């Protein structure tokens, strides 16, 4: 590995980036790769978002309007897959690439060539997935959770492409995680002990461990599907002695840690933003670290709360119910730490702070509906209704996605060297805040009233709320076009940003110029000098 890193230095020492397309294709620079991940995620956001618009247009009124039920199922499935694997996860990897080396005072990621590979196989994976729309039998239609036998015996023939796409996505995530962990463990500036690391680095360290623990299990699950479909095995076929319920256990053993993979880096981003705009150090740094670690550990023993209705012994229901509720404790610690950080701070409300505060409030709503769903006897009522849809969209959209948007506003001046338009940023925030609630809050009501999820049509009594939800969704979709405009405007017409950018910002990345040089911290920063403390 030493050859890789030193060779890289010799090639590029005191050089700028290469010119043209080859800069992006062959880059091993963590900043370039971070930008690639973020732009990829941005593009996928609009593709997955367009699918959500089709779904909401179909559900605007009861009855069959625009698309066939078969195509509707393909929309629901691919919307979920793209948003989870193509938007939220790559966006966080993009943040990790940009920020981890700068925040720990390292010159680059530990494995720069692997870094290039893990990005470039990602467009290939999604190319394969999206290509299935143009194949015979259509795209995958069995939901993003692809339960067997829907995804095996009853799947369209394109399921094989889906399986390979998931394999490639998994490989990309695993390589990215190995890179992040190796970087954090080996390349911190002298004097930066683990308990002095910025919280974003801590959240990513733990996220990367989660990814390494569960992405291979997902790869195993899709491999078993592949063997059931093509090689006559019976992992999930009851007729051959297998068990379809086994699929759900294996899937959710991956799936529950996966939902924390999508939220832990958000916790890190939001912690930095709140301390900056409160002009106070984060309250309870150590408890934050322990809370993240306990959430990660607990995520391995709660998976069956996704399948309370599958027929479990009562002891199992109780175990998974209580272990799930236990997660509320470390999560509560984090929420109260954010509130305490803001308490008596000299607050200002720039766009990143607005998104971060909305994150704390709305993510907590999603957390509370999660507690409701954790109650096993109540879950029999909520299971597979729009209440579940409301719950996970609250934690993923005003949760994970808002933290990403907040992080982009917060670090964009650092990355590009240009300030965004503050009043347009605030307009974007308020439009997003109102429309996200308009979209997802009424889903709680229709869900409690019994509207099932994943259906293209619904009973008349749900018509009013669904129309409100659809209007909110269209507004939210349009607001994100404004976000794209704000980002492009900052890059092309923005005012020069200072190195410090934000008055209260602390951490090594703010000691650099905006934008930072192509290679930074080639000699590690001196942490003892005081100002550079994380």
């Amino acid at each position: 590995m030493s050859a890789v890193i030193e060779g890289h230095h010799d090639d590029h020492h005191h050089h700028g980036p290469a010119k043209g397309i080859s800069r992006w294709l062959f880059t091993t620079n963590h900043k370039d790769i971070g930008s690639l991940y973020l732009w990829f995620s941005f593009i996928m956001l609009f593709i997955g978002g367009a699918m959500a618009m089709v779904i909401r247009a179909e559900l605007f009124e009861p009855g069959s309007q625009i698309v066939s039920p078969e195509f509707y199922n393909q929309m629901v499935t691919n919307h979920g897959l793209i948003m989870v694997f193509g938007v939220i996860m790559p966006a966080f990897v993009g943040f990790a690439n940009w920020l981890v080396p700068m925040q720990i005072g390292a010159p680059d990621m530990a494995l720069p060539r692997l870094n290039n590979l893990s990005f470039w196989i990602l467009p290939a994976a999604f190319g394969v997935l999206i290509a299935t729309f143009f194949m015979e039998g259509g795209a995958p239609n069995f939901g993003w959770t692809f339960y067997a036998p829907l995804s095996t015996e009853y799947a369209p023939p394109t399921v094989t492409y889906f399986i390979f796409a998931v394999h490639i996505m998994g490989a990309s995530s695993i390589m990215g995680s190995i890179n992040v962990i190796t970087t954090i463990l080996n390349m911190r500036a002298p004097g930066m002990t683990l308990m002095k690391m910025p919280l974003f680095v801590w959240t990513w360290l733990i996220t990367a461990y989660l990814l390494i623990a569960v992405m291979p299990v997902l790869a195993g699950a899709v491999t078993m599907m592949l063997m059931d479909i093509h090689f006559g095995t019976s992992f999930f076929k009851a007729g051959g002695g297998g068990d379809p319920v086994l699929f759900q256990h294996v899937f959710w053993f991956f799936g529950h840690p996966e939902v924390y993979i999508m939220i832990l880096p958000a916790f890190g981003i939001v912690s930095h933003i709140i301390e900056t705009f409160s002009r106070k150090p984060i309250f309870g740094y150590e408890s934050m670290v322990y809370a993240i670690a306990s959430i990660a550990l607990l995520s391995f023993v709660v998976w069956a709360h996704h399948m309370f209705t599958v027929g479990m012994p009562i002891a199992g229901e109780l175990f998974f119910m209580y272990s799930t509720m236990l997660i509320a404790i470390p999560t509560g610690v984090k929420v109260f730490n954010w509130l305490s950080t803001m308490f008596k701070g000299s607050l200002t409300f720039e766009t990143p702070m607005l998104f971060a505060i909305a994150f704390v409030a709305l993510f907590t709503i999603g957390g509370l509906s999660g507690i409701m769903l954790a109650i096993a006897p109540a879950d029999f009522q909520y299971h597979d209704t729009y209440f579940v849809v409301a719950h996970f969209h609250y934690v993923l959209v005003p949760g994970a996605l808002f933290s990403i948007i907040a992080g982009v506003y917060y670090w964009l001046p650092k990355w590009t060297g240009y300030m965004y338009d503050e009043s347009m940023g605030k307009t974007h925030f308020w439009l997003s805040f109102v429309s996200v609630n308009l979209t997802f809050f009424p889903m709680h009501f229709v869900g409690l009233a019994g509207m099932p999820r994943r259906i293209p049509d619904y009973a008349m009594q749900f018509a009013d709320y669904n129309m409100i939800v659809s209007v909110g969704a269209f507004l939210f979709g349009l607001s994100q076009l404004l976000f794209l405009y704000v980002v492009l405007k900052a890059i092309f017409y923005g005012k020069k940003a200072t190195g410090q950018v934000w008055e209260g910002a602390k951490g090594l990345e703010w000691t650099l110029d905006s934008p930072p040089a192509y290679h930074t911290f080639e000699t590690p920063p001196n942490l003892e000098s005081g100002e550079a403390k994380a």
Partner: protein
Amino acid sequence: MSSIRKSVSKLFLATVGMFLFGFALVPLYDVFCEITGLNGKVTGPTFSEYENVGNREIKIIFTTTNNDDMPWVFDSLKSQMRVKTGEQNLLNYVFTNTTNKPMIAQAIPSVSPGKGAQYFHKTECFCFEQQFLEPGESITIPLKFVIDPDLPKDISSLALGYTLFDITKDLVQKQASN
């Protein structure tokens, strides 16, 4: 930089280990089901004589279902029985291949409530083997079972359901891939 090499190889091993663990979940799940009675899974043939036959009377309900579009006619001769715990019982099931093709089928049992499954001992059962029937052929196969006298007091009835799967295609596929 050998510390980087060390980190990478450890993490790579962890990845491979977790991939294998995914497959290890399959046998682990079977063991777990056996211990907890999850899914009403029942164990293989067992034969045991009980000293205290017991005089509890248990109602057993028998159901048969065809999976998907399995065309055979498949039924038990009785839909329910009252049996004494610890005694051998016998019930006949009839399979008829109504199609004009030879087919192979497999019946998969499930006992409910799940926690009663481990007390339902089948001493002879067609569910242990595959059934091959020529077009129009019909066979009657007995099921012999004993209800364990240790059956918890709060269970007064058990249901034994069979689902019949068409595995003709799977077997042909398996032979082809071998």
